């Protein structure tokens, strides 16, 4: 009898756990500096755009829904559904990245100092998450390209499922980070 969880899925879960611990270390530093200081954000540093980022978060959360649709596509073997949902997911991820990039440029233009505790924790947490989203979008595009070349079927789609797991992690992590950095 085959194991209920394949080695690849288990390895991805452990990898995601390790990634979560990496972010936990950074979140711990942020919490320490945020609540250990008297004034946050420090004087002279720009405020974060909560409303614009909340709207941007909706794009990322919508991409989790479209990824769920793609997941259903892998399992049923429906290539059209898979490709449509993967393309939508990658598009929403790209929108998220573009809006985050614009927000970064605005903050830097308003004098965000990456040398300060405020700026460095923001850059470490949000920047590292952005790099993860960028990597996940690249992986999604690879999966999309492979699905266009008929590389997956209802029986063979492990790589696509791993990509979906990673994407769900990136989306779930953003909820934590948004709550901590923007609303905390």
């Amino acid at each position, binding site marked *: *009898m*085959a*194991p*209920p*969880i*394949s*080695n*690849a*899925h*288990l390895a991805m*879960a*452990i990898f995601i*756990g390790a990634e*979560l*611990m990496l972010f*936990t*270390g950074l*979140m*711990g*530093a942020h*919490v*320490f*500096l*945020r*609540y*250990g*200081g*008297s004034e946050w954000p420090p004087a002279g540093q720009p405020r974060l755009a909560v409303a614009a980022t909340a709207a941007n978060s909706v794009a990322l959360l919508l991409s989790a829904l479209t990824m769920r649709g793609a997941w259903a596509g892998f*399992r*049923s*073997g*429906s*290539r*059209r559904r898979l490709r449509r949902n993967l393309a939508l997911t990658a598009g929403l991820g790209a929108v998220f990245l573009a809006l985050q990039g614009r927000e970064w440029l605005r903050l830097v233009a308003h004098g965000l100092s990456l040398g300060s505790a405020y700026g460095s924790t923001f850059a470490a947490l949000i920047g590292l998450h952005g790099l993860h989203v960028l990597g996940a979008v690249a992986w999604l595009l690879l999966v999309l390209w492979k699905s266009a070349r*008929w590389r997956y*079927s*209802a*029986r*063979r789609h*492990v790589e696509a*499922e791993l990509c979906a797991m990673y994407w769900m992690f990136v989306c779930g992590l953003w909820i934590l980070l948004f709550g901590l950095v923007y609303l905390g």
Partner: protein
Amino acid sequence: MRRIGRFIVGLAGAALGSSLSSPEVLAQGCAMCRMAVQSPDDPLVKGINLSVVLMVAMPFAVVGGIGGWVVMAYRRAHSRAPFSGGASPGLSAPGTETSATTEEQP
């Protein structure tokens, strides 16, 4: 193998030895933190406490989450085994699913 065993025994001995030391001796390595934590009104204390809670809770959440997922998957597979002869399609090893491929032409 014997080397690894010696290493583990040595590590356990060191941990036991350090746990037998008095709190004053252990706290010497972190004198600044100790002084800061002794003043409860200091916002630094709140920062340290929240940070410690977050970093202590997360490993339990990660290990518990992955462990719970594995246990649930095995339980589900075990409960389905007499009827379908295998695990749920989404979690089984590649090439073991039983669902048919309904490939749509573009």
